[in-house]
């Protein structure tokens, strides 16, 4: 696998575009001035790049844990946390201290080693996945040719660590939560990957920076050439974001940890910092998957209108990321939790067929677009996506596909 280190074209050290890369460049300059060997320089550069990403997202994690509670409170007409510091802004610090000083309880029936490994193995994939996302024009921590594949490969490790957490706890609710989590993640990873395949087909590359570069420019002078503004991209993007809510185990897909049903799912038997690690893994995973969605469909760091290029590109990326995450919070505050059979039906009979449709649509779109038949591309792909969608809606509404609740043990 080829790792291409960011090649600095020596712009001014303090320009805002290069601000996130400042530590990396300073360290590289320092080491080369000392005459350090090449492998040490590249190792240090990667390390510093990872450190910057970790710093940014740990801060974002702390902030989001507060913003989420505040937003939910606002939606529910409450005030939310307001004791620690002005407007409760010290709440994350207080939470952190509480988590660190809590007693670490390991159940007597637990598998000690797996119980310890599970929270660690849940954070690691999330951090690894954050490494390949292009945050700015010059800022991709680890530019990788197979970045998209790497993201999904690493993300698939999460399922096993959730299972480990549930099984190693040696009690009922974690086990139930883990089983729910595995079946949910396996089902919703399919539409996630399928809708990403359409993007891969159109851009012809697995490298995330290249995918963003191809979404640059504007149609008709003002319409950004983002993937979401094409018929297949709109459908694929919506499927991707719905599936990513499910992958991140967030409401309304938070069955694995539904607190009114199975206590806290796979996290039930964890306390103290291990619990905080689960929490952290979940939020970092949320950042990673929404960041991937922004990269694939919302044009990554590209500015939304021409003439806005003077704003550093990473600000656009994080603005889009914040908008997506706010949208997720809004959904969480609005929708009730699904039932298990509804979840499976929605995934297998709703999202997967729709995401499969985006693939032929993307193929036709690319062929016609390359042959300069832009209008024809719209005329063909829109009905191709809309007609099956309408048929599916009718089927769902006629209760042909929808299931009624069945009681296996309660009724009799």
């Amino acid at each position, binding site marked *: 696998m080829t790792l291409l280190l960011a090649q600095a074209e020596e712009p001014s050290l303090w320009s805002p575009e290069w601000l996130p890369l400042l530590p990396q460049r300073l360290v590289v300059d320092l080491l080369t001035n000392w005459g350090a060997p090449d492998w040490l320089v590249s190792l240090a550069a990667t390390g510093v790049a990872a450190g910057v990403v970790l710093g940014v997202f740990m801060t974002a994690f702390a902030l989001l844990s507060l913003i989420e509670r505040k937003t939910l409170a606002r939606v529910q007409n409450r005030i939310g946390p307001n004791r620690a510091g002005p407007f409760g802004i010290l709440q994350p610090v207080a939470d952190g201290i509480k988590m660190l000083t809590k007693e670490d309880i390991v159940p007597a029936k637990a598998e000690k080693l797996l119980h310890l490994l599970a929270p660690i193995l849940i954070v690691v994939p999330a951090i690894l996945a954050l490494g390949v996302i292009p945050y700015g024009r010059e800022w991709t921590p680890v530019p990788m040719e197979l970045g998209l594949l790497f993201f999904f490969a690493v993300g698939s490790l999460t399922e096993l660590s959730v299972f480990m957490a549930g099984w190693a706890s040696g009690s009922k609710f974690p086990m139930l939560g883990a089983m729910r989590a595995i*079946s949910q993640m*396996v089902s919703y990873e399919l539409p996630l990957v399928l809708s990403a395949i359409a993007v891969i087909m159109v851009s012809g590359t697995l490298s995330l920076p290249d995918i963003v570069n191809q979404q640059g420019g504007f149609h008709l002078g003002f319409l950004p050439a983002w993937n979401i503004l094409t018929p297949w991209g709109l459908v694929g993007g919506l499927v991707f974001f719905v599936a990513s809510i499910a992958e991140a185990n967030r409401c309304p897909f938070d069955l694995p940890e539904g607190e009114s049903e199975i206590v806290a799912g796979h996290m039930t038997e964890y306390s103290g910092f291990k619990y905080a690690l689960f929490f952290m893994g979940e939020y970092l995973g949320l950042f990673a998957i929404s960041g991937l969605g922004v990269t694939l469909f919302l044009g990554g760091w590209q500015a939304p209108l021409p003439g806005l290029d003077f704003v550093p590109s990473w600000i656009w990326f994080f603005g889009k990321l914040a908008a997506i995450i706010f949208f997720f919070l809004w959904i969480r505050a609005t929708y009730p939790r699904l039932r298990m059979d509804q979840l499976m039906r929605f995934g297998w009979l709703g999202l997967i067929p729709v995401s499969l449709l985006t693939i032929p649509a993307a193929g036709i779109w690319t062929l016609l677009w390359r042959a300069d038949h832009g209008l024809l591309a719209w005329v063909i792909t829109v009905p191709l996506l809309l007609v099956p969608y309408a048929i599916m809606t009718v089927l769902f509404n006629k209760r042909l596909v929808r299931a009624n609740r069945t009681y296996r043990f309660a009724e009799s």
Partner: protein
Amino acid sequence: MISLLILAPLILLAALGAVWKARPVHAALLLALTLSLGGALYIALGAGFLGLVQFMVYVGAVAVLIVFALLITRPRDETEEIARRPKSVLPGLLCTLPLVAVLLYAVGRNVAEPAAEAKELPIERIGELLFTTHAPAVLAVAVLLTAVMLGAALFAREPKSFGVRRLASALGATEELGSPQSADKPAPAFQNPPTTK
């Protein structure tokens, strides 16, 4: 070469553990470890695409499915498994030895020519090969997997009758199509249990 020397013993240890562990879940997790170390070895040898696909397919899907199957089938007690062990050693060895012989023969034949500088095949080339030269093989595997999936879905339900309806309901598409009462009549809404006075 260094990566091989580091990874190969680890892979062997994990694989031995996967075979030797009496608890099925431990064995499955060690199998996942073996497979992911294999993926790491591919990456170290310069086959990044293969390594990542190995992670995604084997660790992300196959290992998870094995674990899931273990959970819903309630495997036997491990004491029984340990008691059965002496009997299974000899057949196991008999099955393994020919494989080892074949591998040794194959490696011994190829080791003469030095491994050329590992050059990663560009991803476009891999895709081209998969969709042109090897398309029949890919299609055959796809048909096979579809057949397996249909078979599994059918086996999962008890085979009372067979037909389009049966097939559809086995695939989970139309739960109520097969049962007579719900096609024309709306399903009863949830009723509160009768309250006791």
